[in-house]
């Protein structure tokens, strides 16, 4: 199945995401024009403001998009996660070309024309509306065109903060090593960019043509046609996106941005749907966004791991007793976030220190302590998450007094599996439930010094949602202890290894369990 067959088979999702993408781009570009055009005009009237304002817009333009999203998330009123924050970021990016081209366009109006307008007794307003704006229009439109194309590109990153759009497919594809998914997101995004570029470019050339020849009738019709087509396409996309999300959801189910989290969220979501509830899925929230969204009430539930909660979210020191961790986390969530921690789902997803099975046999490695004497000859490669988190590399190396051959290579988690299998590194830290462990012939070393806290999988739920929806609690109870480590590995492998949709995999699993 190639990328096009994939798109055809999943046309509904691709179309819905394209619509979301279009909505993001259209709304943010409109706002950017609504803000940037008057601001640009003001700058042509207040020379002193020009340099500082353009400098700020320039700086905004150079902030990497993920970093900009990061800055926006904690802001009140404009920030948060999802759609609103994405629009704010996109507007900030689109502002510069709009402002700069407005200034350039207006200042480019010939001196003699401006002088004549003034001498004819036109007011400043009349000069602006009848002379400067029409003459600057092609340049301003060129700025809008650049802003739109930039927005189409940056909007793919918006998926990282849960704003949806075609980036959702691209990120999912990157995570699952699935080029079809990447292409299913990238191709429509590229087409959108080309269409926006061509559409606005056509408009621009019509505006220019009107000034060169008086025989503007034909141009006017074509221009009106282009404008109408642009409006219709945008409205259709926006309409589709709205229609697609118009169902009033009873409950918002979130997930983090990796396969296992999505599967667990989907298991719960399907359980709710089986009881007749309407579920809105807000999956693939990066970093700690899922927690932020839960705390802010933007999602009602998402899957988490007790150890992660303990250290990354609640900022406690490491603890080793699973029962104690669970109880502490439960009472903290209740008092600090009004969130209930569901019963453990039945498995742990801890960091798994992995080596190739051939090495394990040759060097007789069973525990992490066993590799300490060999470590100076071993190359390590760890995911960014493991390198930076409180219960990650630093403490791990200290706890075992590990000295690897050079500083560990920091790489994408899924890439590190490949690097290990292909012999580019010798030790990685994966996830114990990962389906890849078995398929790639890897051996997990026992954490004999109990450095890693217990990572029991649980669901976190907002109390107000549980009180509102009795079914939510029933489903929660049914799932207690229902998933073993082996089952979780198999489910993960179905999605990551066999490239099957999580929803299908979960549906079969529920049937097999008689749920």
């Amino acid at each position, binding site marked *: 199945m190639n990328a096009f067959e994939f798109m055809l088979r999943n046309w509904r999702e691709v179309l819905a995401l394209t619509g979301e993408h279009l909505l993001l781009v259209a709304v943010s570009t409109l706002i950017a024009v609504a803000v940037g055009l008057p601001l640009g005009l003001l700058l042509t009237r207040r020379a002193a403001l020009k340099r500082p304002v353009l400098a700020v817009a320039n700086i905004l333009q150079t902030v990497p998009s993920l970093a900009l999203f990061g800055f926006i998330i904690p802001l009140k009123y404009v920030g948060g996660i999802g759609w609103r924050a994405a629009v704010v970021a996109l507007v900030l990016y689109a502002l510069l070309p709009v402002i700069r081209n407005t200034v350039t366009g207006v200042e480019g109006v010939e001196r003699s024309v401006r*002088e*004549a307008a003034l001498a004819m007794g036109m007011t400043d307003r009349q000069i602006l509306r009848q002379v400067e704006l029409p003459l600057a229009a092609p340049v301003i439109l060129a700025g809008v065109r650049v802003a739109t194309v930039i927005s189409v590109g940056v909007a793919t990153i918006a998926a990282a903060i849960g704003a949806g759009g075609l980036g959702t497919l691209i990120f999912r594809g990157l995570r699952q090593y699935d080029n079809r998914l990447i292409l299913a997101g990238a191709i429509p995004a590229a087409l959108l960019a080309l269409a926006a570029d061509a559409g606005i470019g056509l408009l621009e050339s019509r505006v220019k043509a009107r000034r060169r020849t*008086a025989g503007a009738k034909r141009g006017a019709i074509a221009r009106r046609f282009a404008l109408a087509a642009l409006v219709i396409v945008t409205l259709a996309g926006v309409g589709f996106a709205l229609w697609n999300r118009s169902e009033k959801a009873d409950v918002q189910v979130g997930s983090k941005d990796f396969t296992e989290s999505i599967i667990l969220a989907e298991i719960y979501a399907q359980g709710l749907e089986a009881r007749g509830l309407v579920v809105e899925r807000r999956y693939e929230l990066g970093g700690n966004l899922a927690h932020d969204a839960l705390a802010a009430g933007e999602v009602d539930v998402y899957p988490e791991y007790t150890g992660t909660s303990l250290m990354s979210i609640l900022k406690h020191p490491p603890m080793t007793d699973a029962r104690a961790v669970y109880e502490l986390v439960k009472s903290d969530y209740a008092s600090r976030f009004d969130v209930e921690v569901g019963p453990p789902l039945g498995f742990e997803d801890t960091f798994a220190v992995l080596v190739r099975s051939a090495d394990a046999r040759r060097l007789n490695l069973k525990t992490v302590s066993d590799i300490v004497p060999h470590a100076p000859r071993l190359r390590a490669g760890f995911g960014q998450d493991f390198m930076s988190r409180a219960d990650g590399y630093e403490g791990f190396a200290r706890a075992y007094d590990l000295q690897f051959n050079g500083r560990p290579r920091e790489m994408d988690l899924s890439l590190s599996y490949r690097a290990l299998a292909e012999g580019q590194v010798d030790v990685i830290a994966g996830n114990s439930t990962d389906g890849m462990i078995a398929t790639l012939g890897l051996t997990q070393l026992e954490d004999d010094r109990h450095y890693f806290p217990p990572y029991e999988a649980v669901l976190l739920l907002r109390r107000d949602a549980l009180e509102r929806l009795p079914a939510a609690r029933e489903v929660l109870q049914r799932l207690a202890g229902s998933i073993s480590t082996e089952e979780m590995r198999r489910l993960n492998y179905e999605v990551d290894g066999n490239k099957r949709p999580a929803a299908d995999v979960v549906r079969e699993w529920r049937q097999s369990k008689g749920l």
Partner: protein
Amino acid sequence: MTPEGNTVVHFRSVTYAPPGVSAPIIDALDLEVRRGETLVLLGESGCGKTTTLRLVNRLLEPTAGEVLVEGKDTRAWDAIELRRRTGYVIQDAGLFPHFNVGRNVGLVPVLEGWDESRVNARVEELLRLVGLDPEKFGARLPAELSGGQRQRVGVARALAADPPLLLMDEPFGALDPLTRAALQREFAALQKRLNKTVIFVTHDVREALLLGTRVALMSAGRIVLLDTPDAFLRSDEPHARAYRETLQLPGEVSAAVPGDGRAEGEP
């Protein structure tokens, strides 16, 4: 009639010296422009003649002294009202490139709120007046006109709302000699019919002598000579003499008097 009754524009020791400029551009200038005359400001580049013009319709304001238009200080005038009753023609016409000829000419009447049929009639009348067929030219854009045609449109636009006062800043300066001569001749004839008060800026002494009722010779922000063309030709003032000498062509015995030499350079 007030004492000012016959004076349309009155400069009273006007100085224009914007900050950051060492010497004043206009230096204690006194000048009365009479109703119905064509006063030509003649001088080399930078002598202050264009600045003088811009002080009349308040594109600039004097830093000392006062400019009276119809007896009223320009600073007391509403700038918009003053400009709408003052026609203005500049060297490269300054037509709006996105307006067709008709809209350019009808600009001030439209701003003044005339109804459409009155504007259209006025536009037609003016295009005929400046020698352009309204049928043929009304819908064209400035880019589709020759330099001479654009300048005719510029004149028509300046006359559109029938202003009593007309300011012209080297209106024919950028045209080729043949077209310039033709337009000068037509303008002289037009002025006889319309009897506007005109202040006309040029650095071309032939044009000054041909069109001016009086010629004001300017140098370094002052008027060094103000007299009729005939008196100008007889004057001993050094600048006037220098200009007169430029009129002598090789082989010519005496100074050409443009009044007689109208046909010069014409087809």
